[in-house]
């Protein structure tokens, strides 16, 4: 059985080592937070300037001065710290985050990622912190469905969409499989309701078994 979004998030969370400093990209990656146990010691970073972010704020806890990168109200945990955008991106760019989880339109076999622009001529381009996150964290995990709605694979030999970063993705977590990508090629680490051979047939990249 392929995984639901929530199951994918749980699968990603299970691979985040205890005590890691982690940035969860906006959109689906945000779900990963729900699957990090309180005892894990994982510390969440939000690039708008907070380390040790807590869960979404509700009711009276909503404070317009305290949001995540998606501009949603959040909370702070004990032991948090606030800093400016310059300091926050220095932290990201400097390689201090252990893991960052991003959504993507496409990931290439060598770990390129495209997640900021569909390339459509009338689209308003917007990049935010995506390029900084893609190249900054020690390990970059991508979380996406493996196939677009029309069935075309999103794990590709080479991205056709405009790139966010080059050779920076380590792992790709999808609804039907988990892949290790990068200079060493693509390895299938796990499958859900699909066989290695079926994957190999539907993808245009060479696969190695785990």
């Amino acid at each position: 059985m392929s995984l639901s979004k929530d199951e994918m998030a749980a699968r990603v969370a299970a691979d985040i080592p205890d005590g890691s400093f982690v940035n969860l990209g906006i959109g689906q990656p945000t779900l990963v937070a729900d699957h990090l146990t309180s005892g894990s010691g994982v510390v969440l970073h939000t690039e708008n300037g907070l380390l040790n972010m807590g869960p979404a704020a509700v009711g009276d806890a909503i404070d317009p001065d305290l949001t995540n990168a998606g501009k949603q109200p959040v909370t702070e945990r004990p032991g948090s710290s606030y800093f400016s955008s310059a300091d926050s991106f220095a932290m990201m760019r400097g390689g201090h985050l252990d893991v960052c989880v991003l959504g993507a339109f496409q990931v290439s076999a060598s770990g390129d990622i495209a997640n900021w622009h569909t390339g459509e001529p009338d689209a308003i381009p917007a990049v935010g912190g995506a390029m900084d996150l893609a190249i900054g964290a020690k390990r970059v995990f991508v979380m996406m469905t493996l196939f677009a709605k029309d069935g075309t694979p999103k794990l590709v030999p080479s991205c056709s969409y405009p790139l966010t970063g080059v050779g920076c993705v380590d792992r790709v977590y999808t609804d039907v499989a988990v892949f290790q990508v990068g200079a060493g090629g693509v390895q299938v680490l796990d499958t859900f309701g699909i066989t290695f051979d079926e994957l190999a047939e539907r993808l245009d990249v060479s696969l190695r078994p785990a």
Partner: protein
Amino acid sequence: MRICASAAEAVAGIEDGSTVLIGGFGMAGMPVALIDALIEQGASDLTVVSNNAGNGDTGLAALLAQGRVRKMICSFPRQHDSWVFDGLYRAGKIELELVPQGNLAERMRAAGAGIGAFFTPTGVGTPLAEGKETREIDGRTYVLEYPIRGDVALVGAHRADRMGNLVYRKTARNFGPVMATAAATTIAQVSRVVETGDLDPEAVVTPSIYVDRVVAV
């Protein structure tokens, strides 16, 4: 440093053609009163540097709607409520320089810190680095980026003392501190001006040297 009696007094003298740095990440830290005063004040042909390109129909979006901004330099103009910018952009009525958020912050940091240019890994190999100088250093490729200086910075802070020292509140801090260092004239809106000595010197985020005018709103 001058404590101003009104936002109008605080933004007086901003000239046509200025580059204006505007703090805020979405609405958090957005100096709305100063932007409203700038709309009243009338300066046009502006280059605005801000992380986003306005929300709804107020604040920065209202400034854009009045056709007063020639060029936006930002990282994320596309938001669910950024229809004013979207319309101007699609109509070819505004220029956009899209900058990855960290490069945006670091380019202003360079302006404030006297750095002439810097090699950053962010954006390498992407369309946002096209045509820019690159260099391999210790096996990694970097792109050369230049400072972004403001004539004016409009910053939303929490408290100021009478010398102009600033503290911020939670994630509303965001771009305020770096913009305050990067502009010739920095104007801060705060919720309250306290007596000199009332801010903890260990916790001041923007030292008074960076602040020219303060208004409590």
